[in-house]
Each structure stands twice: as C-alpha cells, then as structure tokens.
C-alpha cells in the first residue's frame, strides 16, 4: 500500500475518531455520519467474513464438487428470509425450528457439564479428604468462604420459601457476595473501556505527527471552529428567549 494511502488512512481514522468523540460535547452531524458509517462498515465486515468463511468454502465449493447435501442447510437458511413476505412468512419456521432444536439440544448437556456440575464440583472438591490433607489452612479458609458465599447467593435466588429468619440472614449475606461480584465486574468493565480509550488517544497522537501532516490537530481545529460557528448560528435572539 502506498504512503499516500497510509497518510489518507491516518486522516480518515483521526477524523472518524474525533467525530465520534465530538458527541461528548453535543450531538452533531459529524457524529451521526460516523455512527451510520460504523453501522454499515460493521455489517460489511460481517458480510465479507460470511462470504469468505462460510458461503464460498462451505456452500459454493462443495456444490461445485458435487456435494449436494449442503443444499439442505442452505435452503433451510433461505427460508428465514421469507420473514419479509407476510403471506409466506410461515416457511421461515422450518429454519427457525431447526436452529432452535439444534441449539437447545446442544445447550442442555453443555450447561449441565460446565455451569452446573463443574461449579458444584469446584465448590465441594476442596473439602475432600485428599485435598484437605494436601492443602493449607489459608486455602481451606478460602474454599469455605466460596462455599458459604455460594450457598448464601443460592438462598437469595430461592423463592420457594419465604425469606425470614435464618433464610433471610443467609440471603442477606448472599447479597454482599453478589455486590462484590458486581463491583469487580464493573471495575473490570471500566478498565476495559479505558484501555480502548488509551488506544484511541495513542492513535490520535500518532496521526498528529509530521508524517500524517498533523491530521489530528487540523481536524480537531476544524471541529472546534464548527462548534463555535454553530453556536452563534443557532443561538436564539435574547428578545425571543425572554418572550418564551
């Protein structure tokens, strides 16, 4: 790729980044353009992924090689599109029921083995005799905290009995464990978003250099100018404001 295209890319990336950040000040046409562009580009990206990773290698090439069995899922998949034609939209049920049946059949054993049995096993196993003799007091204490917390959280979600007395106390303890989980999850999410933010600032810094002809500064300046002009252009006369 030529240097010109790389510089142009830098301008595009810096421009789109600043357009999207401009929403932090207020909604504006540049943000809306970038937002719609993102929607289209996202769909385009998935489309080309489907084209080169599914339709060509898994449908087109097998068909050319004489494997006509791929026509079955292709036709079932195409039935989904009949949703757009109300008179024959019922045909889409063939595709949907296949997907739902397969998905449900798959999810039951997987959920039982990973989310149910393994979680219960992970809570109980530290208390097995072999583990206790091997582990130390700290690990045993931690395992006890996990087990007690886990049972208390389950009490919180258990609605078949009224929450009073010991059950209420247990479910209250469960809330604290849930809060610790939500707090940690929130902290992790914040850090994830901030690492993306650093990445964008890093790119903006890169595109502000001489190689990219100071793209970041030029676009940022133009945006500031736009907002100043827009402010005076859309400002209502003082008399009108008073009358209102």
């Amino acid at each position, binding site marked *: 790729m030529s240097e010109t295209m790389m510089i142009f890319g830098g301008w595009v990336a810096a421009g789109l980044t600043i357009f999207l950040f401009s929403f932090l000040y207020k909604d504006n046409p540049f943000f809306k353009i970038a*937002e719609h562009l*993102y929607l289209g580009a996202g769909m385009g990206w998935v489309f080309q992924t489907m084209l080169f990773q599914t339709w060509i290698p898994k449908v087109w090439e097998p068909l050319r090689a004489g494997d006509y069995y791929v026509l079955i899922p292709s036709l079932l998949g195409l039935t989904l599109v009949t949703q757009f034609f109300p008179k024959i939209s019922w045909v889409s049920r063939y595709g*949907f029921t296949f997907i739902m049946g397969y998905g449900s059949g798959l999810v*039951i054993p997987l959920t*039982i083995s990973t989310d149910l049995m393994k979680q219960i096993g992970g809570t109980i196993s530290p208390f097995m005799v072999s583990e206790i003799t091997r582990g130390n007091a700290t690990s045993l204490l931690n395992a006890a905290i996990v087990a*007690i917390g886990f049972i208390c959280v389950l009490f919180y979600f258990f609605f078949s009995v009224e929450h009073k007395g010991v059950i209420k106390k247990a479910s209250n303890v469960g809330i604290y464990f849930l809060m610790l*989980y939500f707090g940690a999850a929130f902290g992790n999410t914040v*850090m994830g978003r*901030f690492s993306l933010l650093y990445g964008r600032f890093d790119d903006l810094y890169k595109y502000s250099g001489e190689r990219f002809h100071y793209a970041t500064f030029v676009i940022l300046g133009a945006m500031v100018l736009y907002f100043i002009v827009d402010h005076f252009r859309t400002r209502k006369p003082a008399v009108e404001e008073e009358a209102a």
Partner: protein
Amino acid sequence: MTLIKKHIPLAICFIVGLLTLSTYYIPTKASENYIEVMNKWENIMAGFAFLLGLFSLFFSHYNKMKRKVDGWGYSLFVFVGFFAMVIPSVLSHGRQMVGPDLTGLGWGYRFLFNALSGTMFSVLAFYIVSTAYRAFRIKSAQAGVLFVAALIVIVGKVPLGQMIWETVLGWTHVGVTDIVQWLMDVPVVAGKRGILMGLAIGGIVTALKIVFGIERQYMGKD
C-alpha cells in the same frame, strides 16, 4: 395446512433437539459424525440468518431515504460504510495482507472499522464514569461493598493506583494486586457461581421447553 405450518416445524425441532441431546450421552462414531455435519449445517444457516438482519437494516434505511424522513441523508452512509468494506474485500479475495502490504480490506479494517469500533466503545468509558458517580452514592452497606470492590479492582489495575496504594497503605505490607487477586479468586467466584447456577437451571428448563414444543413464541403468530 396446520400440519405443514405448525406440526412439521415442531417435529423438526423435537427430532433435531433430541438427536443432538442424545449424541452427548451416547458417544459413538455415528454421534460424532452427526455432530460434525450438524455443526457445518448450523454454520451455513447462521450465514443465511445474518442476511435476515442485513436485509432488515437495508430496508429500514432505504425506506428512510425513499420517504425523505428527518436525517435521511445519514442513511446513505450506512450503504457507504457497507460497500467500503465489501468491495475491497471482493477485490482482495478476503485477504487483509499480501506479503507485508495491506490490501484494500486491510486498509478498511485498520483505518475505518477498527477506528470506529474502538472509539465507539471507548466513548462509553466517559458515560460509565459519569453513571458511576450517580450510582455509587453510598446509601447502604451493600452499595458500599459494591463501591469498594470496584475501587480496589480499578486501583489495582493501573500503575498510578498501585503507587498511591503503596504510598498510603504501604505500611500494611499487603499489595493491592494481591487483594485484587484474592477478591477475584474467592468472594467474586462465590457470587459468580450463584448467578451461573441460576442461569444454568433457567437455560436448561427453557431449552427443554423448546425441544418439547411447550415454548413456541419464536415461531410467531399463525
């Protein structure tokens, strides 16, 4: 007509669901082959299911442009973005790089899609912080626990936070990273397991209801 419109689709769901379920518990060569074929079919169908979303989006924005509703001009950029990714991809046969050089698709991904998606999600950082300011007003002990857990995780993951911790609480000889690790390994696991258990039971029950045709909302109305 009810047979074609309702009973056969439900039978497909039941048979496919039961067969898939049984393959996990009856591990034979036939089960393996069945799952392999079904995975391939599922992939192909997912590709066509994507078309459903794509056409829906296109119809929606095409109609906006056709009826010239407020802001219809922006809808044009949905198509611009779409073709800006698809045309170079077709020209470069889905490859992002040819040797050390970026292809048109690679260029689009790096300077268009990556810049847009990275910024779109990073903007949320500002909103999360402003929301947190309002949400974290400590009104109860439980809200206090939530706040402390979030604060420790945030402080423990940035060098500045670690430096502050060392300066203020260095005398305790307990590092903030150790606390974060303990938090993630012990109490957070307890809370997460409880939620996972609830999700698992709910998921299994819903899946069984779908297989046996009790839950059929996804089929739409007759």
